């Protein structure tokens, strides 16, 4: 399968083109908290990998995209780009969760990927990677305080992702042992996204209109801001919190 993979969900911006034979990737990291700046990189990267591989969008089988969780704005840039490219070229899209993309960067084993979710929280989940099939989700993606993982983590697991850099000590304290194998992988990358998409196959592809974000954090307006019904909005209320 020929897949174009787009990942703008975190501080890293990457695009990969993967076929049965080879994989080409473009990758760049933005200064922390500026995923909006991916708007300057991502389509240039798409053009670069297409040129390098001598493909046109129309030759591809699908477009894969990281649907989050991550930066809200970054997630939507990825979705918008994947939808626009796919709709224009009549291609289906394969959405993959950012935690599964992170998990796919190891060869095999149980893995606890954690992404910094700001506000003293991490996005995380638990996966098992078995060679050459897509990561098996042992626990679905959640947003939690780093010290309170909602699942047990055994000693042979490994940990990776930006959440470990920021909250590693708290995560360790929470899971109750320090045997975990901490890897230096920080951000999801399009080449691993492409790998998961290849493993998932076209059965998991949907029409671009059906693509949905995986925000995970859905409680974005403080409840006290809620007004009684019948009260009318004024332009531009305070900005909602969140990352």
């Amino acid at each position: 399968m020929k897949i174009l993979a787009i990942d703008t969900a975190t501080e890293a911006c990457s695009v990969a083109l993967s076929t049965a034979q080879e994989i080409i990737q473009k990758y760049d990291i933005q200064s922390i908290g500026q995923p909006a700046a991916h708007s300057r990189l991502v389509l240039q990267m798409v053009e670069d990998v297409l040129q390098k591989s001598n493909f046109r969008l129309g030759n591809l089988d699908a477009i894969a995209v990281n649907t989050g969780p991550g930066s809200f704005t970054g997630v939507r840039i990825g979705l918008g780009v994947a939808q626009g490219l796919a709709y224009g070229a009549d291609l289906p899209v394969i959405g993959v969760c950012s935690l599964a993309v992170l998990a796919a960067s190891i060869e095999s084993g149980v893995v606890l990927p954690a992404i910094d979710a700001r506000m003293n929280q991490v996005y995380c989940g638990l996966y098992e990677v078995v060679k050459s099939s897509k990561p098996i989700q042992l626990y679905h993606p959640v947003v939690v305080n780093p010290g309170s993982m909602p699942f047990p983590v055994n000693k042979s697991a490994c940990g990776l992702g930006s959440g470990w850099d920021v909250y590693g000590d708290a995560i360790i304290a929470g899971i109750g042992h320090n045997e975990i194998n901490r890897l230096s992988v920080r951000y999801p990358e399009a080449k691993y996204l492409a790998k998961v998409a290849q493993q998932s196959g076209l059965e998991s592809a949907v029409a671009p209109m059906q693509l949905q974000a995986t925000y995970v954090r859905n409680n974005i307006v403080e409840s006290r801001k809620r007004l009684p019904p019948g009260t009318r909005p004024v332009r531009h209320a305070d900005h909602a919190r969140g990352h």
Partner: protein
Amino acid sequence: MRILGIETSCDDTGAAIYDSHQGLIVHQLASQVDLHQQYGGVVPELAARDHIRVLLPLIDSLVRDPLNDAKKLDAVAYTAGPGLVGALLVGASLGKSLAQSWGVPAIGVHHMEGHLLSPMLEDNPPEFPFLALLVSGGHTLLVDVEAAGHYKILGQSVDDAAGEAFDKTAKLLGLDYPGGPAIAKAAINGDANRFTFPRPMTNRPGLDFSFSGLKTHTLITAQKHQLDEQTIADIALAFELAVVDTLKIKCSRALSQTMRKRLVVAGGVGANQRLRATLQKLADQNNVRLFYPRAEFCTDNGAMIAYAGYFRLTTEGLANRRLATGKPAVNDYAFDVHPRWSLEDI
């Protein structure tokens, strides 16, 4: 040329297809008013989430509409600013990528230029030069349009926008959102002799506006009276008359200052019938022609963005002019947005 227009700057998702020979082909709007109502204002993150959820289905329904016989269009225009950054990025990323996929040009449009050019969607559109009064929920501007793409801001609000004043006043009278239509409706039964409200900043020279004092005056009046149906109608009328008269006085001043013979009124408040009638009278007295879009194109919509994009791409001298926003596009593949962006800096 057939162009797709995309509007996602605030709380309306709009899309439209405009054809240079046939005019507007199809257009659609998905409003988020209900979504934000319970929070007392537009919540930017919720707005962006809703835009990305509905935009492509909206575009798809237009592209597949039987009225549109072209599956692939010749260009894509999207609102690049001013507006909410997260909301703008939805239209920009999808619009720019779709254009790249189709292999056609994409253009980032200034939202207020969209409003300003919206009367061009109607029969007998204005020619340049003209004077424009842009009155919306976020902006109140008097603009001298010397020629295509040459804008000079003559005056603007120093505080609340006109539409915002309508909305806030409606709220304190217990009327529905959006406030503009609600106040206009209540005012129909008002007695014009009961209250007279001030015309802010009209007794000194200049073309700037201020509406927050008028809002306070309304509040004090409302507090002094029992708010029965008649009193609400009387206050609504006094408020509407004060806003309309203030806008008329400034337009009159700007017309004599610029000697323009055409006046364009656009933006949400431009849908106000009393404003239109009053400006029509002013225009007739001064041998000026008045132009405005149909009511549904006064508020935010995709049609005006499609038109403004077409205008930018095809008007000689504008087509190749870079968007001078201080931050030039890094490359032809970038889709920068500009949350703050003056009409004079396009």
